[in-house]
């Protein structure tokens, strides 16, 4: 139905960083810790594409999502959304662009206002961006959206606490869609849900994306989920993108040792072909004090002394396939799901 023009980027992030400055209060100033949650990240998302973003907890995935949506002010870098530069815009300047980009949250219990009815939650964006819309038109739109996300329009009068996690997530999706956005960031939209519900919600998102021709950034720490929804995948580690490739290419031919380690940590579908696992040693280092050079070197089984010297840039090693690692001589294991 919708003609999706693929190829041209809808959103381009270039050298985006988000550092949090800790311990700075009005009455206490001085040496402060800097959390480099995101450090020089570049990628683009093409129209109609789903870009997956994976990485361990604390790698900065949510911060990337929130920064490109300008819920955070980026510390550095440029974010271009359909020709508009978002970095540096004020709240007021961002307002007209807000309906075009939306966020789906991880926690369905915190993302809906407990004091508002479902109908009110979904139609609030309309009252803000098109206050002249009549009550009847709003009600009709709410019913339409509830239907789209697979809920009964009767639910509009109810309050969020009357719903289960999966249903609340559907309500959150309806709210995100009410203004017909072009771009969605889904920040772990299913990881708080029961496994049996996860598939339903993922399928719903995919269906809607197809129907409405949405462009999406899909964040998850679960490779299997990201693999089944994404066209391309970016792998993040400690605030940086270490590998970026089309989904098939990443699963069949990973080029970064961290990607290999993630694959090897996946649950194995057939225990008969169990192989030696490459277990990640130790903890993810603190983003306050990241290692010099390659941030992965403290846990990388292939690290060389040179890895501490320079930050390896994200460079293309095959068409559309980029990695940030100085070693080209590695033969890494593909995913067991490939």
């Amino acid at each position: 139905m919708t003609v999706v023009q693929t190829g041209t980027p809808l959103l381009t992030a270039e050298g985006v960083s988000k550092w949090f400055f800790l311990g700075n209060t009005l009455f206490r100033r001085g040496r402060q810790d800097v959390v480099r949650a995101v450090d020089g990240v570049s990628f683009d998302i093409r129209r109609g594409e789903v870009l997956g973003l994976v990485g361990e907890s604390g790698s900065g995935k949510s911060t990337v999502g929130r920064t490109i949506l300008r819920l955070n002010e980026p510390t550095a870098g440029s974010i271009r959304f359909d020709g508009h530069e978002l970095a540096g815009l004020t709240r007021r300047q961002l307002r007209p662009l807000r309906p075009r980009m939306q966020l789906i949250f991880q926690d369905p219990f915190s993302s809906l206002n407990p004091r508002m009815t479902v109908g009110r939650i979904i139609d609030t964006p309309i009252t803000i961006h098109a206050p002249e819309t009549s009550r009847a038109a709003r009600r009709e739109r709410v019913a339409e959206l509830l239907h789209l996300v697979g809920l009964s329009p009767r639910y509009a009068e109810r309050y969020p606490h009357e719903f289960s996690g999966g249903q609340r997530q559907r309500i959150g999706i309806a709210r995100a869609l009410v203004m017909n956005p072009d771009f969605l960031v889904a920040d772990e939209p299913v990881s708080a849900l029961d496994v049996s519900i996860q598939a339903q919600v993922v399928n719903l998102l995919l269906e809607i994306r197809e129907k409405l021709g949405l462009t999406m950034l899909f964040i998850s720490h679960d490779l299997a989920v990201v693999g089944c929804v994404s066209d391309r995948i970016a792998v993040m580690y400690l605030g940086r993108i270490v590998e970026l490739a089309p989904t098939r290419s990443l699963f069949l031919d990973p080029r970064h040792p961290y990607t290999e380690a993630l694959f090897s940590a996946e649950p194995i579908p057939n225990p008969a072909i169990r192989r030696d696992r490459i277990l990640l040693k130790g903890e993810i280092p603190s983003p306050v004090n990241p290692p010099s050079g390659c941030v992965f070197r403290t846990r990388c089984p292939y690290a060389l002394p040179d890895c501490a010297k320079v930050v390896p840039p994200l460079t293309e090693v095959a068409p559309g396939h980029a990695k940030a690692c100085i070693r080209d001589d590695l033969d890494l294991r593909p995913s067991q799901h490939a």
Partner: protein
Amino acid sequence: MPVDRIDELGGRPEPEQTLHVNRNRALRRFLRHRLAILGTVTIAVLVIACAIGPYITPFDHLFIDIRSRFQPPVSGAHVFGTDEMGRDLLSRLMMAGRVSLTIGFAAMMLSTIFGTLVGAVAGYYGRKTGAVLMRFVDAVLCFPNIFLLLTLAAFIQPSLMTITIIIAATSWMEVARVVEGQLRSLRERDFAVAAEMIGAPNSHIMFKELLPNAVAPIVVAATLTVARAILMESYISFLGYGIQPPEPSWGNMLNNAQQYLNSAPWLAIFPGLMITLAVTSFNFLGDGLRDALDPRLEV
């Protein structure tokens, strides 16, 4: 195709509790609940009595009758007795109650509105604005209230309005703190981020999204403020800076009664009892509300 089905997986299991703890808690709740009901009934009786009582009694609260001075309670026509000028004590108590309750409610309204605004702005904007505002609140809180009250009262012509304003000026800080804490934590919740995401103006996020989630603690704080305000009005009137005789207030009646403590103790006992009754009733009601409303705050 709409999926009209409830997937019952979002629920969280209740933590297990022993019967003993449960029973104890239920008992405590019930008792507090009873006190709150008692408080509510007392407040209702006081309000109704003070509102319509003066129209019903045959005695004017300012009417002086030298022949029937110092009549003890229940001895004649005057149920609560008379004072040193033969004025009917019950009528005076009811008129005084009007003053005290009016000041209590009005000061509560003023300080709740002001405290809510200050707290909402401080909690929502946080950072420098919040830090400056809350240090200001702390500074006002540190100042000995009763001195502040008396200093202000000494400079300002006492009237119902000025006393209300003075009391409100010294009692908005509690509400401000409560609201600041609530908004500071609420604004971190995802639904506040969602409102930000749709480009809602700050006023919408503050007043329509966040504040309705803080109503319960505001109501509790407001109820306790009424109690405090009534007590404060009594203080300042007792010390002679508040409502001026011959207009009665529970505080200035108490002041007046000091001289006759031995000969006519009822002149002190009744206003004192009224103050205690009103203040404890509002405190019970506040505690009960806190108990009843708090669990529902959890989402």
